[in-house]
Each structure stands twice: as C-alpha cells, then as structure tokens.
C-alpha cells in the first residue's frame, strides 16, 4: 500500500515537474504581455522533436539538447517579432488568437520538417530502475526533477537578484512607469517569449524519453501546463511550480486509485473548479495598493 503510494507519488512528481516548466512559460509571457500564449505547447514539441532529430543525425546528446533549446528560444523570438509585435496595440484577445494560429502553423510545419511518427529519445543515463522506499524510480525521473529544480533556482535568482529580471517584473506591474525609467517594453517582450520557449523546450526534452514525443505532443502538454498555471495563479512563479506539482500528483493518484481512463480529465476538472471557485489560483496576485 505505501509502496504503491510512493510509486504514484514519484510518477506524479515527475509529470508535475514537466507541467511546472510549461506553466512557468505561460506565466512569464502572461506577465510581460497579459497574453496567454497557446503556442507554449508547441515549444515543448519542438524541444522534444528537435533533440530526437539531432540525435538521429549523430549529434551527441548534450549538444543536441543545447541546440534544441536554442532553436526553441529562437522560435519564441520569431513568434514575438513576426506575429505578436506587428499586432502591437491590438486587444489581448486578438493576440491570444494569433498564438492559437501560430500553434496550428507550428504543428503543421513539424509534420513537414519531421514526420507524423512517434519518437523516443534515449534516456540520459540508462534505463536500469532504482529502488527508493519501495518505489521504482527511473533514472530519467531523477533527471526531470533535478533539472526542474535547477531551472527553478536559476529563475528565482534571475527575477530576485538581477536588474534585468526586476525590469521584467516592473514591466509586468506597471508598463507606463517601466517605459518612463527607460525599460524597452519591446525587449522585455522578446526576452519573455524566448525564455518561455526555452523553458518549454527543456520540458519537452526531459519528458521525451519517458512519454515519447511526436508532432502533436504539445497540445495536451500545453493544456496541462495551462491548467497548472491557472491552478497556481497565473503570473506567479511559485504558483506555477506548485500548480504543476499538485496537478501531476492528482493525475497520478487518480490514475492509480480510481481509473487511468480519467487521467487526462483530472486536469480539466481542476481547471474548471479553480476558474469557478478561486479564479486567483493558489498563489495568485492579490496586491493591496495605496492610491
């Protein structure tokens, strides 16, 4: 019983870490632009597919990972520059629709550049499972958790300790004041999109050896990440991580104890429940301000 519980917990944390990375991407772009970027899942797909393709070409895994993340970051930059920036000043809904269009385009391009097959990336360090407290842990799970932890620490250093990170936060809080101190809102947007894309790609690469990857893997991972971001409180970094973990564990537990048939439904039930009963999410902003 406890071994079983531990097993579900490990599985949930692993999946949750991936959701957390995707949710962080949603939150960063939302903070910069109030836009929910529905192409976020496509960055996950590009990360996974690109790394698989590079490894197939004979590129060593570490180099393939770096190149795939860089490719996704460039793609994020291009999305901002050529799709979002030209619509500057348009209502947020318009921008959201643009990102939906971009996601359809990217999926289509992926089927042309690569193919419609399902691919698996080789696990980073073997497949021999480890025994931890009665649970079977794949080495790849440790990679997922470790890299996610490193990314979260890096991001909290970036937003908490560097002037550039604070400029991003300042812009999300008050765009006019940010412009008046000389922060370029255009650069903030470009940086946010490429950072989010890189985060999505990292998630896509980490999970590719476990759940495999294909041209349409971004749809479900994107939606799950979106649900995690809403659950944690859109725009909150800590919320995104918490939301991702809670969602991952809830999914894994319900699949284990109830039925795996409902695994995907859990995310959307949670999403609806949060939107109805607590739209600010677990750690959403509720800032009191003096006027």
């Amino acid at each position, binding site marked *: 019983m406890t071994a079983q519980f531990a097993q579900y917990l490990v599985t949930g944390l692993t999946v949750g870490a991936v959701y957390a990375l995707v949710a962080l991407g949603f939150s960063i772009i939302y903070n910069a632009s109030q836009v929910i970027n529905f192409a976020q899942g496509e960055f996950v797909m590009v990360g996974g597919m690109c790394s698989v393709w590079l490894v197939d070409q004979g590129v060593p895994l570490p180099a393939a990972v770096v190149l795939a993340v860089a490719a996704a970051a460039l793609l994020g930059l291009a999305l901002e520059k050529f799709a979002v920036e030209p619509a500057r000043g348009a209502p947020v809904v318009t921008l959201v629709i643009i990102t939906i269009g971009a996601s359809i385009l990217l999926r289509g391009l992926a089927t042309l550049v690569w193919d419609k097959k399902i691919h698996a990336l080789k696990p980073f360090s073997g497949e021999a499972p480890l025994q931890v407290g009665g649970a079977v842990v794949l080495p790849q799970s440790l990679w997922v958790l470790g890299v996610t932890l490193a990314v979260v620490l890096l991001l909290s250093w970036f937003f908490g300790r560097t*002037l550039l990170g*604070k*400029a991003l*936060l*300042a812009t999300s*809080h*008050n765009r*006019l*004041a*940010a*412009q*008046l*101190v*000389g*922060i*370029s809102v255009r650069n903030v947007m470009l940086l946010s999109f490429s950072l989010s894309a890189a985060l999505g790609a990292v998630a896509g690469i980490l999970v590719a050896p476990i759940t495999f990857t294909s041209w349409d893997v971004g749809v479900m991972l994107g939606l799950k990440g979106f649900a995690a971001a809403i659950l944690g409180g859109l725009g909150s970094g800590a919320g995104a991580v918490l939301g991702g973990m809670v969602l991952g564990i809830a999914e894994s537990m319900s699949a284990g104890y109830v039925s795996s048939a409902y695994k995907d439904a859990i995310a959307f039930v949670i999403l609806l429940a949060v939107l109805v009963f607590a739209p600010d999410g677990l750690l959403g*902003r509720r*800032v*009191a*301000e*003096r*006027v």
Partner: protein
Amino acid sequence: MLEIRSLASAYGRIPALKGIDLDLRPGELVTLVGANGAGKTTLLRAISGVQPVTGGTVRISGADITRASSRHRVRLGIVQVPEGRQVFGPLSVEDNLRLGAYTRPRAEAEGSLERVYAMFPVLKDKRGSSAGTLSGGQQQMLAMGRALMAQPRVLLLDEPSMGLAPRLVAEIFACVQALRTADTAILLVEQNAGAALAIADRGYVLETGQIVLTGTGAALLADAGVRSAYLGF
C-alpha cells in the same frame, strides 16, 4: 535646452494638443497650469515619448527627438515623475530606485543612490520594504527619487502634490525647489496653481490643448484671468 514647436497629439480622432510652443532653459523651473483635460499630462507624455505625436517637433539641446524612443529620451536626461506616482508596488524601495538608473552603468548608480538616500532619509529606512506598503507621501518621494536616479537634465513632474495632506504638500514643494540646480530644468504640472506659480520662474496656461497665456510666475499670479479661473479669488 528643451524646445517644443507646434506639437500636436490626439487620442484617436480627438485632438489633445493643438500646436504647443514651449521652451525650457537650463536651471529653470517652469509650471504648466490648466484645468482637468486641458492636455497637461498628454504634453508631458508626448515629451517623454509614451504618447504618439501627430505633428510638430521636440528638441533637446538642438537634437530632434520627436520620433525617439522613450528609452533614448531617458538616456538623454528627459525623466518624468508620472501622475499618481506609479511606483513598482511589489518591488522593494531600493529595487525601485535601482530601476530608475536602468539606463545607466551600475557604478554610477551607486553614487546616485547615496544622494537620493541623503535627500529622502525615510527611503533609506524603508529600503527593504515593498513600495506598495509606503504611505502616499513616501511613494511620491520614491517616485521623485527614482527619477533622480536617471540623472535628469529635464525633470517632468506631473501633479506631485495630488492626494497628499497639506503638510506633505509643503514638503513636496520644498523638494521640488531643492531639485532645481544649475543644469536641471523642471517642468511642473500642478492643480495647485497658486503654490506652483509662487515658486516658478515662468508659467504657461494651457486650455483645451493650446497655450493661451505665458509669463513669469509672478505676472501670472497677478493676472486677473488666471486668478479667477485657477486660483479662485
């Protein structure tokens, strides 16, 4: 120093500024007086480059900056303290100040930070608190301190006394006077026209997007039309 010629701006089809001519010389304190909706804030935003202009020119020290980005203008020393203070609420007082020096090298910012803390000691006491928790007067000081971090040559102040208790208003006006130095010019927008004109070298009266009167602060204070329209006596 700052030279504005027939500047025009509009919100959609509605003109907000209809050909403004305004000059600011080094070390000068100039005030802009006018009713709500006359275009005072629009003019300051156009000077800062965050409001699109439809005609005319803005020059600083002879260089045309009518189409320059707001970032470039801050670099050139055109710095604004916006209406309603607009501090970065969730960030700390010190982070707000450091962001004020965003366009400057880090080493230079340290010296400015010490000067701002010397000028507003309360900000030093609260350096770690988030800006949103400060009182209105402290937030105004923070907004002014943040602008000083950019080392302004032209300081644009939009309604610095708005919403403050009378005792604080006097304090803020004292600060404004202290800020004018030999090489910094100040353009002050105020609802409190009497107090503003009393400390100003010159003043402009703005009505529905046009300058209708200009003169020294003392002359405008004595003007019958200004007195009845903006001073209420």
